[in-house]
């Protein structure tokens, strides 16, 4: 009887330890959850700069509901490009419409950003964070 009890306590102990380890593993995994990988994720919307900016201008609330946190892909001409303290920012315009998208590039794209200049036509994919004077994208990558 005593041996059985001992065995029982032993097995419970092992299970408890295992449970704790698994819980710890899950917590660490959750804590270190990676950011959305824009590179390997398909765009939710492939849209022209003119159209997305117009949607925000017409009704920001509706556009916010539609586009916030979504992956947006746009194509345009570079009208401004800066790289300060490792943060690349590209402003894209289409057809000189005055409607622009500002893309904060992800740090791993810096090498590509350095090789670009004003006037280049590029396609960018990033996460939409909203609208100020422009539509804003973050964690953006250059598609081509």
């Amino acid at each position: 009887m005593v041996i059985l009890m001992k065995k029982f306590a032993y097995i419970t102990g092992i299970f408890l330890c295992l449970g704790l380890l698994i819980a710890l593993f899950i917590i660490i995994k959750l804590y270190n959850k990676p950011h959305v990988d824009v590179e390997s994720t398909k765009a939710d919307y492939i849209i022209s700069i003119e159209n997305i900016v117009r949607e925000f201008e017409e009704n920001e609330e509706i556009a916010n509901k539609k586009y916030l946190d979504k992956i947006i892909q746009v194509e345009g001409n570079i009208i401004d490009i800066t790289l300060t303290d490792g943060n690349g920012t590209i402003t894209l315009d289409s057809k000189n419409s005055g409607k622009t998208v500002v893309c904060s590039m992800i740090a791993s794209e810096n090498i590509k950003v350095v090789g670009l200049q004003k006037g280049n036509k590029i396609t960018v994919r990033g996460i939409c964070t909203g609208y100020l004077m422009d539509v804003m994208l973050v964690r953006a990558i250059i598609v081509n």
Partner: protein
Amino acid sequence: MRFITLLFILITGLYVSAQEKYFTKQGYISFFSHTSVEDIKAENNQVLSIIDFSTGEIAITVLMKSFAFEKALMQEHFNENYVESDKYPKATFTGTIQNLKDILEGNNTIAEIKGKLTIKGITKIVTIESKTVIENDSITLKGKFMVTVADFNIKIPAIVRKNIAESVEVTFLLNHQPYKK
């Protein structure tokens, strides 16, 4: 007399060059929370700031979702639970430089900006001190101030209360260029 004329030209010259609007779309604002458990930092490089140097008025807008955290989980909690950025996507500051004359005349480089800070739909009156650098074609504001999290109805759950500071340090660097329409 010559000295006075020179001084007059200098001052009016400064005024003329300053009586314009300056703005930036790529201002930098970060905030930093320090506790003994962990340090948390988030950075935003998409800050919109406009200064009207004829009146000393400043308007700053940031998108909450543009704050980038090192950990995706923190960013998620910040947006979904703490600032509810779907409901309140923007934080704003509108204020006036109180000592504009001193700044424009170059007697002082620390601007005292009093205004309204709105986060999560709640507005508080704050006074921010900012180092001000006026150059030919740019006006840079740089400084820090503290924000008390509870002032803006941001509730931190008990389980992470030790991880997040009661007041966070906000740092800003806004390099304004002349505003052209």
